[in-house]
């Protein structure tokens, strides 16, 4: 491609879904670096159970887009071993719920390689998997263990909430020399947004983003919670004329506390939201950090909203009531603003 064409491409963006943005990052990295390969259940012939990898097997062949048996422990561990020898495996786990059977390889192997061996060998492994609930998938299939991984030294954890970050963070993860868990999200896959086409576009790991500017309250979250927060912000602007700032964390480890603290120092009120259970969850860490860093700035306690603390029931009505839906987030926001 000519330098001019490249320059144009570098500046161009295109509207696409979160799913397409992930696929674009994968195909660009597969094309750029032979060490990159994709491995997981149904990623090839089936086109991916959520179609993220659709078409990639035709484009890159079965060696680089590897269908695996249902053996998460073995192929996550195979990713660890391949990465230790310099490959760049991108392992797909259908949903984060199934990482439970491979927990030992993620926590006690991938995360340990760097430090336990004194920096003698690295593990540039990427694991991609969606969290979330909301389609009546029920108790065993509707969880978000994000905080468990974010609390594990040796791992890096990112969770894109927009198509642009889906591309930018996945690219950054594949190029990173450490194990990175990329937490995607089921409801967001179909969300559309502007995505930079520049193959060199990356979203830096460890940098949060102000998704919406506001002055009265900061809502902090990651993944789908950000989409909900933006909706609630609009709603409250109309209904109560309040100005809500929304911080999209983008990374959970490293966690960009500075951006959160700068925001809360201006708004003096914070509401932390997550799709998973809040007790002992991601929002617990956020609240703990904010109360310490913003002790003198806070006009109200840091509030949290998460999924109702029960194994998610199947019935639509029960499920909806259990989710951190927009009504519950709005109510929590008003309570934090003293407007409840």
């Amino acid at each position, binding site marked *: 491609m000519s330098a001019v064409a490249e320059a144009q491409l570098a500046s161009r963006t295109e509207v696409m879904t979160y799913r397409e943005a992930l696929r674009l990052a994968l195909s660009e990295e597969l094309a750029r670096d032979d060490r990159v390969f994709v491995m997981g*259940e*149904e990623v090839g*012939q*089936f*086109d991916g*159970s959520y179609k993220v990898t659709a078409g990639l097997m035709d484009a890159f062949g079965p060696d680089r887009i590897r*269908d695996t*048996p*249902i*053996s998460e*422990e*073995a192929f996550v561990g195979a990713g660890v071993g391949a990465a230790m020898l310099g490959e760049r495996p991108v392992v797909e786990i259908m949903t984060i*719920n*199934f990482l*439970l*059977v491979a927990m030992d390889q993620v926590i006690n192997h991938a995360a340990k390689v760097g430090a336990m061996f004194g920096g003698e060998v690295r593990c540039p492994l990427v694991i991609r998997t969606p969290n979330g609930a909301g*389609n*009546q*998938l*029920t*108790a*065993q*299939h509707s969880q978000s263990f994000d905080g468990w991984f974010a609390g594990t030294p040796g791992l890096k954890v990112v969770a894109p909430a927009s198509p642009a970050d889906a591309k930018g963070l996945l690219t950054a993860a594949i190029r990173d020399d450490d194990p990175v868990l990329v937490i995607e999200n089921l409801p967001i896959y179909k969300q559309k947004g502007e995505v930079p086409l520049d193959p060199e576009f990356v979203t830096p790991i460890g940098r949060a983003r102000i998704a919406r500017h506001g002055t009265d309250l900061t809502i902090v979250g990651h993944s789908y919670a950000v989409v909900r927060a933006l909706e609630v912000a609009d709603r409250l602007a109309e209904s109560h004329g309040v100005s809500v700032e929304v911080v999209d964390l983008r990374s959970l480890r490293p966690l960009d506390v500075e951006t959160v603290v700068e925001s809360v120092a201006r708004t003096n009120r914070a509401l932390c939201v997550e799709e998973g259970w*809040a*007790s002992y969850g991601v*929002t617990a860490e956020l609240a703990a950090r904010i109360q310490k860093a913003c002790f003198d700035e806070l006009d109200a306690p840091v*509030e*949290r*909203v*998460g999924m*109702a*603390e*029960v*194994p998610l*029931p*199947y*019935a*639509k*009505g*029960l499920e909806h*009531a*259990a989710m951190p839906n927009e009504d*519950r987030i709005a*109510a*929590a926001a008003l*309570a934090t603003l003293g407007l409840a």
Partner: protein
Amino acid sequence: MAVTQAATERVSPELRRELYESMVLSRVFETEAERQYKAARIGGYCHLSSGQEATTVGAIHALEADDLLVTGYRCHGFALARGVPPEAAMAELFGRADGCAHGRGGSMHLLDVERGFYGGWGIVAGQLPVATGLALALVRQGRSQAVLCELGDGAVNMGAWHESLNLAALWHLPVVFLVVNNEYGMGTSVARASAEPELWRRAAAHRMHGERIDGDDLDVVVEAAERLLRAAREERRPAVLEAVTYRYRGHSVADAGLTYRTKDEIAERQALDPIARVRAQLLESGLADDELDAIDDDAEQRVQAAVKYALASPEPNVGDLAAGMHAAGSMKQFARMRPGSPFGEEELTFDSGLGA
């Protein structure tokens, strides 16, 4: 391939007719479930077993009243064959209070403790250790019963399979692992997933009996399941029974099921439909066409009645969101957890009258 030969005489015409009713009920129920799913009255994952009825119904028939059953998520047929009323099953799929799991579990998590059915589980092979534990409990309680544990051909590559088989063999537990080999795990054929595609052979790794049968031949299924369950009950000999069958529909209602197989392949298998086979056998044995049509109509009516029942059943009370999570009396233990709770948590209650 160690295919046990059919022992047709073992299934009397009366019994065959009974099992035919059960097979038809399963087929009709699932056909209706797919319709209702598309009408958005059923949500989540919904895995159909159309084409697998001979395996399902034959294996369940081999169970005694006090035997136990554990399955994966493809459990409609097993539940119905075990005697779960279509009403309770359909109401569960609809997420209603009168469902067999009170609307908490849905399609993947049917159960009926009174009939010894300890669930429908959703994690591939996750039900195997549980089934092994049920078998251990039977032994500890001195009950000479057995556990039938269903799993798929894809599940045999999970570590839980290996660990459970070794434990069952080492401790002589009365459990029969029924591998429903419908030739695919989602879009992956057995050959693409298993280095040893004759899955029954893996039992030998634990000095356990294994065999493979034609899962579409009702007589063969009944004979083998009865024999292996008896050995489990009477001699505490666990076993692997691999039943080769075929799934007509996609992996779940959401999957068209055509990226990994051809329409022709499906058509070929449907030409050998196990229900049609049994129907033909019944005609041979002297039943009249209209008697069999009457059975089919009756199944249709039972399923329609189940739909009516499900529609009439109330949605679960949102106040009972956490019902069943903890045993009665637990609220007291949680009473002091309220201060500083995440927004709304204080309201959660779970000492409820549902279930046991």
